[in-house]
């Protein structure tokens, strides 16, 4: 019989080994599921995780997908380290795209040197507005941010649906739920001409490094860490919980907003109802896979981006449903949280009596 007993201290080995074990278990479990669906597990895992990288422009596609995930994952790491459970990044992502996209649609002819920065600011403000509302509700009414941020994600999604099927619908769009294409001035600047590789790919790792520095080296980051580990000690030190909740929600919301704007202007070129295939929720997995460490969020973001590409590939080549991506991500999060048990506990086998 297995017996779980506390270690007493946190295991250094499992701190790094737990995510790896979670990945292995995810691979095994999803293979079993594929096998149950009548697909050869080996081929499926290959199609899902390796084939997308070998395709032409596979790496480009991967980094483009990863950029918004990393930006949001970094913001969430910061918030979660302070015990601020922002679950609604998807809404902040969407509102950022709406606000920035709105600027783009309103003045398409302004020079890009002015227009694009203005859109970035609008995108950040959109995400911060959404996140700020959540912070205000928690501070003013003691409303649980897990619930409110999640509810705002749905509200924002419906706001987007309303806009692209109503006032912002492209009159020449044959009735499709989408806005007109953004003008060239409003598109995210490219790093490589004629590809989707936009400045977000550069911005995401820079933001990760900057927030890592903030979290680990500065007084502000220290405040977040103390608040997350011992609320009363934060009070004793004189750190204002309310102020830190505000900052955490504004930073994670703002980064999600910028990510949303870059997604809209970098890959889609317009606003549609399919703006986010659950990127905001995937970012939660990214943050946990990266152990809430902004630097480790970078590889975590790349891996989760791969699951999106793999899902597409599995759909096209093997006829598997699109839900495979969600299943894979869900299993991964499940094992990630489960394997954390090993950080503070060990499992011993006791012979059955």
């Amino acid at each position, binding site marked *: 019989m297995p017996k779980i*007993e506390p270690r007493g201290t946190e295991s250094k080995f499992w701190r790094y080994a737990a995510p790896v074990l979670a990945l292995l278990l995810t691979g095994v479990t999803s293979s079993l599921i594929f096998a149950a669906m009548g697909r050869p597990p080996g081929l499926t895992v290959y199609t899902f995780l390796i084939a997308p990288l070998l395709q032409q422009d596979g790496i480009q596609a991967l980094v483009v997908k990863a950029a918004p995930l990393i930006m949001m994952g970094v913001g969430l790491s910061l918030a979660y380290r302070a015990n601020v459970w922002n679950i609604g990044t998807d809404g902040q992502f969407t509102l950022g795209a709406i606000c920035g996209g709105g600027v783009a649609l309103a003045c398409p002819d302004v020079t890009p040197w002015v227009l694009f920065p203005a859109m970035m600011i609008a995108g950040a403000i959109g995400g911060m507005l959404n996140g700020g509302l959540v912070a205000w509700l928690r501070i003013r009414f003691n409303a649980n941010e897990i619930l409110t941020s999640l509810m705002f994600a749905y509200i924002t999604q419906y706001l987007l649906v309303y806009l692209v099927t109503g006032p912002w619908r492209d009159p020449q769009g044959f009735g499709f739920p989408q806005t007109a294409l953004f003008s060239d001035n409003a598109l995210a600047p490219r790093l490589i001409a004629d590809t989707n590789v936009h400045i977000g790919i550069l911005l995401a790792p820079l933001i990760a490094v900057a927030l890592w520095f903030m979290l680990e080296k500065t007084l502000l980051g220290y405040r977040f860490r103390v608040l997350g*580990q011992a609320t009363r000690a934060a009070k004793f030190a*004189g750190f204002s919980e309310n102020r830190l909740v505000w900052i955490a929600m504004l930073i994670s919301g703002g980064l999600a907003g910028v990510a949303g704007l870059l997604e809209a202007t970098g890959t889609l070129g317009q606003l549609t109802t399919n703006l986010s295939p659950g990127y905001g929720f995937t970012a939660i997995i990214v943050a946990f896979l990266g152990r809430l460490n902004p630097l480790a969020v970078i590889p975590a973001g790349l891996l989760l981006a791969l699951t999106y590409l793999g899902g597409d590939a599995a759909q096209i080549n093997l006829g598997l449903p699109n839900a495979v991506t969600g299943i894979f991500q869900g299993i991964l999060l499940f094992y990630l949280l489960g394997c954390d048990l090993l950080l503070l506990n060990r499992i011993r086998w006791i012979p059955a009596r």
Partner: protein
Amino acid sequence: MPDPTPPGPLLTMTGMTKQYPGCLANDHVSLTVERNQIHALLGENGAGKSTLVKTIYGVVKPDAGEIVWEGRKVAIQNPRHAQRLGIGMVFQHFSLFEALTVTENIALGLASANDRIGLRDRIVRISNEYGLPLDPARMVHDLSVGERQRIEIVRCLLQNPKLLIMDEPTSVLTPSEVQKLFVTLRRLAAEGCSILYISHKLQEVRSLCSHATIMRLGRTVGTCAPAEKSVKELAEIMINMPLNVLAPRPHAARAAPPRLVLDKLTIRSPHYFGSGLENISLSLAGGEILGIAGIAGNGQSELMDALSGEILADRPESVLIDGVAAGHMGPHDRRRLHACFVPEERNGHAAVPTMTLSQNAFLSGFTRQALVRFGTIDTKKTSAFATNIIKRFDVRTTGPNAQARSLSGGNLQKFLVGREILQNPAVLVINQPTWGVDAGAALAIHEAIVALAQAGAAVMIISQDLDEIFALADRIAVIAGGHVSPPIPMRDATIESIGRLMGGRTATLEEMATAR
């Protein structure tokens, strides 16, 4: 007790061993409790007393060892099993629902619904019989800690126990309540219920207990008749070294100007059942130590938070630090005015258990030690500060990078007191300076407090330990129900007069209960 009593001791334990991760809590411990005996279990914090009694009560499963109860070998499965055998336990922390009445609370602990029939009358009968006055209809949140303890005792007595285990029962009682409790316990023992009495208050043990088993570091180190030993001898067996006592010092003359003044400080408690503070006026001069005595839960933590700035006062002028109105300032600004604080709870309040000693030195030290440069943490300076605390206060640890939770209670407390004292405060407030701290560390902390006062700081110690206040303070005041009595010089104070003040609210309730 109707059943014929078999000969031999009531309870014999041999070779009891319990291993926790990283800590051998009980290492082949033996204990024998005779019938009709009040038996003391002595030892410092962490000696393994609690683990041993939890084994008897079936809360902890031992890894090895034999328990013989009334001549029969038993393996006690759980507390219910222990109760059926006739073992009752009164824990140090009560398990009562504040919003229920006395009867309802007792009914909740009963094994079956049938036991509830006539419960109220049985409570009244037992409480009268044993001098434990209780009104069964009262809500628990209206009751003093002493009265709450009576509920727990009555709850045990309803089961007709043959052994009653009491874990530090007097830490929540006034001196006069302690005397009443002893009368009850002696009577119980005479009627056939043995008592296993856990305490570190040696004077009480000497007057109450006929036998004692002494534990140190998880082992039994001896048995004795406590009355035949002096308090000093008992303490030295407990700590296995000569006991040094604080050298007496001349009491400070009150000529110096006041450094900390409280003027009609009034605070509403943020907790529903917590105490507020009402109209507290005090004045502390430089060089003076003021002791605030009182039973736990009478507003001590609220007073601490109001002084440190975690709770803001109603008016700025109600807290003056060196003449500056600080009532509306947070902890950070109060530290700038040269005030430092040590709250009661080490883990999670005064320190972050999962952070290193360096990071914990930074927690309250960054303001006054200037450990921040351009918004970033000066790790070199922080580490040097932590190393200095470790060296000056003889903190036993692997170094400034050790996690706070890896330290023993005494060592962490030395570190935390050192962190504040090395900041050269003009005003220092400490809540329970040596709570759960071993004798050696307690002496070191006391010496450091005295040295700080002699250097001109105003020191307030809030403590439940009257001996500590009598050893350290120049003046003493008592906190009861959120009120603080006017301080009196130590030479005018007696244990009896302070004890009466500590009872405060309790005495009147007792009178009401007996009058009915």
